[in-house]
């Protein structure tokens, strides 16, 4: 039984990793651009399909396609920022939020038009999972978890050590003060999209690798991403990572535990409901996030 619970934990960490990569971006964008970016899930989808495009076009492996997908998603995000968001920057946040829902529709339908509605995978064929102390984990899944850890370390080094990272934190802390102390806010915004979209694409590829490619890949997980962002305290990227792990693990545990304890029913199809309950509970009782006192 302990093994079964540990197995669920691994699945939870796996789901949490994918959510974390995107939630960091949502949190950064909220902190710096001050709006909830609803197109983030579909940016993940676009990233996942860019990888597929590169693989089919060149015959390369998914790992060669990965940097291409990241770069392409960054360019798409920068294009949307230039064409849509930048024009609305001086308006109210709710207008940017609605605009991002529009961008989400554009992205999702572009994927539908280009790649069609069918479910597909990067590489067909079934690879047997590795076994370790009775736990099962696939090679891809191990790479996803290690890849996420590496990306989070890179992000942390960027935010803490580089002056651009410091400028981003400064702008999230106090945008007006950042402007008048000479911080180039346009560059900060550019970097926010580079990091946000790059990590979203990484999350999208990982999610598609673990499950399957479909046009609603990212949209379906957007609720979990927002839940993680809220759990971590909106605008705090490290909080978002912790929040993502809480969401991922509780969704998997909640769905799988009844089975572990011998129930003949399962909550698997209620994973989104568990996430939703978590988000509502947080908004009601701790809207400032799990850690830290200030809102």
């Amino acid at each position, binding site marked *: 039984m302990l093994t079964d619970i540990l197995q669920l934990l691994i699945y939870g960490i796996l789901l949490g990793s994918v959510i974390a990569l995107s939630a960091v971006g949502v949190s950064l964008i909220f902190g710096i651009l001050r709006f909830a970016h609803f197109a983030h899930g579909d940016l993940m989808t676009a990233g996942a399909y860019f990888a597929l495009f590169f693989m089919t076009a060149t015959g390369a492996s998914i790992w060669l396609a990965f940097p291409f997908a990241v770069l392409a998603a960054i360019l798409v995000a920068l294009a949307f920022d230039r064409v849509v968001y930048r024009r609305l920057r001086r308006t109210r946040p709710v207008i940017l939020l609605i605009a991002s829902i529009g961008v989400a529709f554009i992205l999702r339908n572009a994927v539908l038009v280009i790649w069609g509605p069918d479910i597909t995978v990067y590489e067909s064929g079934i690879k047997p999972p590795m076994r370790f102390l009775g736990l099962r984990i696939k090679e891809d899944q191990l790479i996803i978890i290690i890849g996420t850890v590496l990306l989070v370390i890179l992000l942390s080094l960027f935010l803490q050590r*580089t*002056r*651009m990272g*410091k*400028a981003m*934190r*400064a702008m999230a*802390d*106090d945008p007006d*003060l*950042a*402007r*008048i*102390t*000479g*911080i*180039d806010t346009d*560059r900060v915004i*550019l*970097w926010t999209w*580079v990091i946000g979209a790059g990590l979203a694409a990484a999350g999208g590829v990982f999610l598609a690798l673990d499950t399957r490619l479909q046009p609603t890949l990212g949209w379906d997980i957007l609720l979990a991403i927002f839940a993680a962002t809220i759990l971590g305290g909106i605008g705090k990227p490290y909080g978002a990572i912790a929040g993502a792990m809480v969401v991922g693990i509780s969704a998997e545990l909640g769905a799988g535990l009844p089975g572990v304890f011998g129930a003949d029913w399962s909550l698997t199809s209620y994973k989104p409901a568990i996430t939703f309950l978590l988000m509502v509970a947080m908004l009601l009782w701790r809207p400032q996030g799990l850690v830290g006192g200030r809102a």
Partner: protein
Amino acid sequence: MPATVAAAGRAPLLAVHSLVKSFGGIRAVDGASLEIPAGSITGLIGPNGAGKSTLFGMVAGFLKPDSGTVLLDGADVTGLPPHRLFARGLVRTFQIPATFDRMTVRDNLMVVPAGQSGESVWRAWVQWGRVQTEDAAIRARADEVLAFLSLDHVCEEYAGNLSGGQKKLLELGRTMMTEPRLVLLDEPGAGVNPTLMAKLREHIRTLNRERGYTICIVEHDMDLIASLCDQVIVMAEGKVLARGSMDEVRANAEVRAAYLGGVRDSST
């Protein structure tokens, strides 16, 4: 004590001509004109409601004047936003000190200078070595500033945890990260304990004498103004009432009338 106007005869660094600003029906600043000579410490005083803060806000780009002009070193900068003025060397501090509370004291200083290559997306990756050298130089400069202000022992502390007085020092430190031409200090003494006040006063004097900063101070503390300022400008009812050394201003009957004992000169 200093001469009446230290740099008389030289072109003023800041020249304000007939500035007007109304809020509703009230003319907070009503045709004020003044000049700040390069290299001076100028005190801006006046009773409450005299329009000092409004004038200050307009010079620093936070308020748009209804009419009038602001010239910085001969160039018209009227109505420019604060970050453009920053680029031209005009920096300010706030009455209630503004700091990046969720960042360390050192990081608060390190984010200041603009136009570093560490902020360019492409160069950050292409010329990593150069960026690192620059960052090291900026860090060294930040540490130098912190040592000068005796804030080095709290350099890793979050700015949000500093006392009000320490935040004022940190703001002063922020101006030192650039090579400012004109520093506007908004009530630097407000809410600062006497020990820290003496320090602050020394720092301001050093920055003026040794680094050549031109400084303008809005302040209610007459002792601070009297001990620091080369020239004092007195405002009342939105206009400039008098200008001269502290002694000259003190002797001015109009100035005495304007204060009406409301804010008594603490040294008499």
